[in-house]
């Protein structure tokens, strides 16, 4: 529930354009554009940031770009 909580907007670091809305104290949020689920932390009670991704599938290594 977002009642009484402040809203903060983050930029998705996966689709690099979509904006994610979080509310004070949220510890996770999903980008509605690309579906990436993120761990959220709070720098101050008013300022949030993405801390890292929540890995929901297996590891997705590609081939080295040097081949």
């Amino acid at each position: 529930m977002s009642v009484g909580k402040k809203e903060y907007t983050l930029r998705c670091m996966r689709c690099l354009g979509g904006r994610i809305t979080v509310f004070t104290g949220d510890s996770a949020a999903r980008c509605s554009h690309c579906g990436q689920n993120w761990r959220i932390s709070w720098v101050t009670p008013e300022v949030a940031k993405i801390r890292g991704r929540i890995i929901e599938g297996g590891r997705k290594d590609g081939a080295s770009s040097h081949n």
Partner: protein
Amino acid sequence: MERLAIIDLSSEQVECKDIPENVQRMYLGGEGLNAYLLYNHLSPGVDPLSPENVLIFGAGLISGCDVSSSRFEVTSKSAEGEGGFGTSNSGGFWSAELKYAGFQHLLIKGKASRPTYLWIHDGEIEFRDASFLWGHDTYESLELILDDLGDQNVQVAMIGQAGENLVRFANIMHGLKRAAGRTGMGCIMGSKLLKAIVVRGKQGLKVNDPEKLLDIFTSHRSQIMSTKIYPVISRYGTLTIFCVQNQSGMISVKNNQFNYFEEAEGRLDDEIFEEQYKTKSLACYACPLRCSHRYRIRSGPYAGVWGEGPEFYMMAGFGPAVGNADWDCILAANTLINRYGLDVGSTSGYIAWLMELWQRGIIDDKDTGGLNLDWGNKETILTLIHQMAKNEGLGGMIGQKASRAAVVIGKDSARYLYTQRGMMHESPENTRASRATTLAAATSSRGSDHLKGRCALEFYAMPPEVLAKIYGKPIASDFRSWEGKAWMAVWTQHFTTVVDSLGYCKFATIWPGSTHNLNYKQFCETIKAVKGWDVTPEELMETGERIWNLERMFIERETGILREGDIPPSVYFTPQPLEPLKGEKIDRAEYEKRLDEYYEIRGWTREGAPTAGTLKRLKLDGEPSHLL
């Protein structure tokens, strides 16, 4: 009137000159006036490590006056790479103290007959024996100097053993972590047997309108502290960039083989650093950002190791770039790097290169002296740092040869070495998906330079109308688009050059992507209060362009490498392997087309040389003018 001291280490003579106002208005101070002095005082074709090379220190024009303006620039003919334009920039307290001591610029020539340090205080310059400092690292040297002078408030710029041993990518260090890095300015200082420059002044600063300056200082401080980036930077410093770069797939992993480092999840981030290692925050002179840290490793094999920093570059360069996800190792490496006075980007870049050569079987344990170069091998990482600084073993060879090490190793080693203008590509950078940043970094004067090339506003998908308002021309919101990006690169290069000539920290300006931070308008306000000059943003932009072109003239004169030096490392033309930027690369033909556009905007030939008309427009057609 600001003063220049010309210091001859060979004869131990000093000549002081007032800096004419017309020269200041054309080149400001810091980087700009350093470039002018280098072009005018260095004879063409001189070996960078010879006594004939000059080493120039310059405080910014307004260093010590405004908020977040305490940076200084060190400039010379480069020791790393092709002997081009060498320059580097550091924060701290040194530049303000130099001004209080009565000088804005120092031009050092010749070579001392014994290890020497300079003691500059209240208009006086003394040559002092530094034999007791030679062989000591920067932490030890700092303590010894404070004891020798009996003054805990002096500010010190110095070299560690890396500079003494002429490592091509040695830094000049200030305090415990501030570094004038890249292009081997510490190597040049070591070649002159100059261990340190110590400054202390009580002369104060003469400014045109002190009351107005105080108002401006207060206003600029509030402006910086009201931005969204402020609480993040003031708590985590540049470490916070790591998450952005890694999650966006713009980081170098294992020598640019990959662009996202999954091992970092839950192990390497700014908050873990704060929780487990950080002991305090630190700031440069008169800066509210306080983006630096002091840390201590509390347990494990490196328990008790302490130091200052680290920056994003350390975290990424000794993290993903070398396949390491261990904070302890990164911090132990950070302390070593700072004590020895080595450059982070080059040191980690060469270690990453060697590890890829090991991975591919191009070198084996006979080449490495028994070292195991598996990715993330912590002891090997630290051993190679020791070797580079002390000129021992495989690391020593790398430190002495730099990019020419590929000739020594031979086989297919050069294929995996990413350099520009002969200088190691900044190891953490893997921004090939962003067009303006790639172009601006690749065309920068020293080569591969994110401090001139990072067009941070490119990354934020900002509305076109906002970008047009800032840059004055249409710029595409998508960082993968080339539309308007040649102009964005030019604009950013001029802006960062003005910032480095005034002495501001880039993180107090709009450069890191905060549109509400200081911009040309605020710079003009400060210049008016400090110097009494009525300067417009347009005039400052042209000043940035003038300085940029003078640096290009130096590069043309000393190396002749123009267009071929403006090409990013070969790996930028190969596709990124991992999401979210999988498949992204720079198309070579498109890059060449955009380089043509960039040259056209600049008024340069297709080969990348300023035309006679451009030099005349910028009042550079009379250089070298020997006005100072």
